[in-house]
Structure formats: C-alpha cells, structure tokens
C-alpha cells in the first residue's frame, strides 16, 4: 500500500532541486521530451537572468492502477515558482495532470498526460463588411484571465481542450464584439449551445485575428515587446502552419517580456516562449496580435 507515495515525493524533490540548481544531475525518471524541456527551462532562466527563488508543489492523486507490484498513479500537480528578474518578482503557477508509474516502490517514469494544444480543424473565412471599431478594456480582459485561468466559467461550455475558448472568453470580457452568428465558419461568436470555429479552435482563431476588419480585430506586430496587457500570442509548435495554441498577456517580467495566462495546461504568469512545454520544438512559430 502507498509505496508509490514515497517514490513520487522523492522524485518531485529531485525535480525541484534540479530546477533550483541545487543539484546538477537531472531527474532520471522523466520522459526524454520532459528531460529536454527541463534543460530548456534552465537555459531559458539563464538567458533571462532569472533567479528561481523557490518552488512549491502539491499533488492530488485520483487514480491508482495496480497490477502485480506495479502501481500507476494519475495525479494533479500544482506548481508555484517564485522568480526574480532585475529587482522584479513574480509568481508563475501551473496545474498539470500527470501519470507516475512505479514498481514495488521504485519510480519507473513520471510524465504529463495531457496535450498542450488543440487539434486543428477548419479555417474560418470571413466576409468583411463595414468597419466598426471597439474599445478594448484591457484591464477587464486581464482580470478575467486572472480569475479563471484554473477554473471554468459555467456561462461557457468546457472543452476537453479549452485553450482558445478561454482566450476568447477573456477578449469577450474586455468588450470584444461578436459577429457572424449562427454560421460557424464565420466571424467570432459564442451562442447558446453553439459557437464559431474561431471561438474555440486555435487555428481558426489565429486566421480570424489576422483577417478580421470588423468586430473583434487585431493587428499583427513583429516584436513581442510591442504587446501590451490583454494582447494575444498564437503558437504553431511544429512550424507546419497548423496553429495549435493561444495565450493572453497578463503581465511582464523584469525584462519587460510578456507573461501569459492559458489553459490546458492551466498556467498563470508563464513565460511567453513556452520553452517549458513538452510541445515546444525548435521550429516553433509565434504570431503576436495587438487587440483592438
């Protein structure tokens, strides 16, 4: 009984010590993707001249699968990282769902079980008509992102991959006008029991933002430093022109670089590059959108 518990605790301690630089050897029971991710995270911290002051984790197991001496445990991992960059402090938070496999109290592997991104679907094309502007309330959008990053507003459907649905809700909270209802391939909208592709699908959302001239609109900028609070970043992790993820800017670190909130993986004040994600590849592409 509970042999897995000690093994997991030891492993998580190693995992934290490595990130804090207290030990030089990486934890050896992670998947190759996560080992790479941890290395990238450390390089990224160096590059940002960031000091990781403290990590706090808690874990909540909810599925324990036993066969013979093997125990596989699915658990929720809540992580807070306290960071300092050039006299500025911030706390980054993440909630992950993970699977740890143990045999007779020895840890075999510990890995992430959810995808970081949405499968891609249809591209939305939109007919643009009259140009109507809107005033974007950035503060409301950010407040919404801070309230709901690890929760689900019951006014909206919860998707198994919720990333773009979450960003759309933030923009809506900032006063972005909907249009195109009820045609799902048109505009950007959420209605009773139905929604546009652009509302919930990362790929459609990215193309909506670069093409819309009416209702919710955005302008693409070249440099991430041109983004402000409430602006949006889109991600193509593999560089194959299928856009898979969206985040919203909710703050800035000591280098004035954006920190983002996002869902699936639920994250708060995460460094915008996503180098700390297993989905990251060297071919990653970003689009930076100024909203409004």
């Amino acid at each position, binding site marked *: 009984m509970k042999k897995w518990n000690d093994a997991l605790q030891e492993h998580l301690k190693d995992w934290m010590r490595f990130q804090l630089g207290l030990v030089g050897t990486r934890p050896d029971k992670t*998947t190759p*993707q996560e080992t790479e991710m941890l290395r990238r995270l450390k390089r990224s911290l160096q590059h940002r001249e960031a000091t990781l002051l403290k990590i706090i984790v808690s874990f*909540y*197991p*909810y*599925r*324990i*699968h*036993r066969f013979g001496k093997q125990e596989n445990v*699915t658990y*929720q991992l809540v992580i807070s990282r306290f960071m300092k960059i050039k006299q500025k402090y911030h706390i980054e938070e993440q909630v992950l*769902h993970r*699977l740890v496999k143990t045999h007779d109290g020895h840890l075999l592997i510990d*890995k*992430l*079980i*959810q*995808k*970081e*991104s949405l499968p891609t679907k249809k591209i939305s094309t939109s007919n643009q008509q009259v140009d109507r502007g809107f005033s974007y309330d950035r503060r409301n959008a950010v407040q919404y992102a801070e309230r709901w990053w690890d929760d*689900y507003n*019951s*006014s*909206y*459907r*919860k998707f*198994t991959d919720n990333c773009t649905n979450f960003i759309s809700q933030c923009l809506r909270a900032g006063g972005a006008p909907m249009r195109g209802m009820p045609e799902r391939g048109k505009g950007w909208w959420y209605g009773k*029991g139905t929604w546009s592709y652009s509302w919930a699908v990362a790929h459609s959302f990215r193309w909506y933002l670069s093409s819309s001239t009416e209702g919710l609109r955005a302008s693409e900028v070249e440099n991430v430093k041109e983004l402000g609070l409430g602006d949006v970043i889109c991600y193509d*992790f593999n560089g194959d022109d299928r856009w898979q993820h969206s985040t919203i800017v909710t703050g800035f670190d000591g280098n004035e670089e954006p920190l983002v909130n996002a869902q699936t993986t639920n994250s708060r004040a995460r460094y915008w590059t996503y180098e700390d994600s*297993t*989905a990251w590849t060297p071919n990653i592409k970003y689009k930076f959108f100024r909203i409004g």
Partner: protein
Amino acid sequence: MEEAENDLFYSQMNTSIGPITIAASNQGVCALYFGESEEVINGMKPWIQKYKIGDVFQEDTDILEVAKKQLHEYFDGDRTEFDMPLDLYGTSFQRSTWKALQQIPYGETRSYKQIADEIGSPRAVRAIGSANNKNPISIIVPCHRVIGSNGKMVGYGSGIDKKEYLLRLEGALQPVSS
C-alpha cells in the same frame, strides 16, 4: 507531444446505503452514481460520448482508492469535506447550479429557491430541480442538501430514502420519532 491517455476508469464500492459506482477521467473524478457498476456505466455512455470525456471504459477495483477512502470516512461520519480533483461536465446552467451546491456546508440544507437566487436566476426553481437531478457526482457535489421550500424532502434521482439517509448522517435531519 504526449499521448493523451483517455481511458475512463470506474469502480464499485459497497456502502451502508448500497452499491455506489465512481468513475474518473484523466482529469479527475467525473461521476458518482448509486447502483452497481454495470448498470451505471451503461446509463452513462451517451453522456460520456456527448462530452468526449473518455474513449474506453475499464473497471478496476483499486483505481479510485483515494475517492473510496474519503467516501468511507464520510459514511463513518469522520469527513465533512471532499478533497480531490473533479472533472465536471454539463450545460452552463447545470454547471452553475452544481457550483452553487458545492458551497452548501456539511450538515446544512438550502431550498431550490435559495439556489435559484444564488445563481442569479430567481425564477428558475424548476430548472434547478432538473439540474440537481442531473448532477453526475452525487454526494461529493451535495445535491442531497437541497430540499423543498417548506422543508420537505422532494425529488432525489436515486430515491428519497437515500437523500434522507445522507442528511441524517450529516445531522441535518432530526431522527424520526414515532
């Protein structure tokens, strides 16, 4: 990218008010119904498919050990709150109702009217009743703590006897005297 392990695991446990079936997706506990597992899982299938909660059903006795332990403690009167990740699926209205239910403390009750007021739809009393009935995680999301405005036990999907049992266990009902 990691593969998503999308199996749905379920397990039956026996309690002082009969068998209970619990299920967990890879995001957390997603169902708790009164009844034996075979019957419960068959009844759940359309809902699981509708919300794409899992692909394959697998029965496993130990897998929900954490939830079972907490439930046993609850039935022994040693636990007043549950602490485990939940994965709740339903319509917007249902989810806001269930959220309101989760705020009712152990040993207390609320009327359907109070819940309707709580979620800002004071005239939706009937709809609250229906959302209450569709609660996929009985006991943990305490739909049994909602009663009629006159204090009467009304509707409980799994039978009024179960509702009375739970409320009596929590000390929210005085023992019946004859």
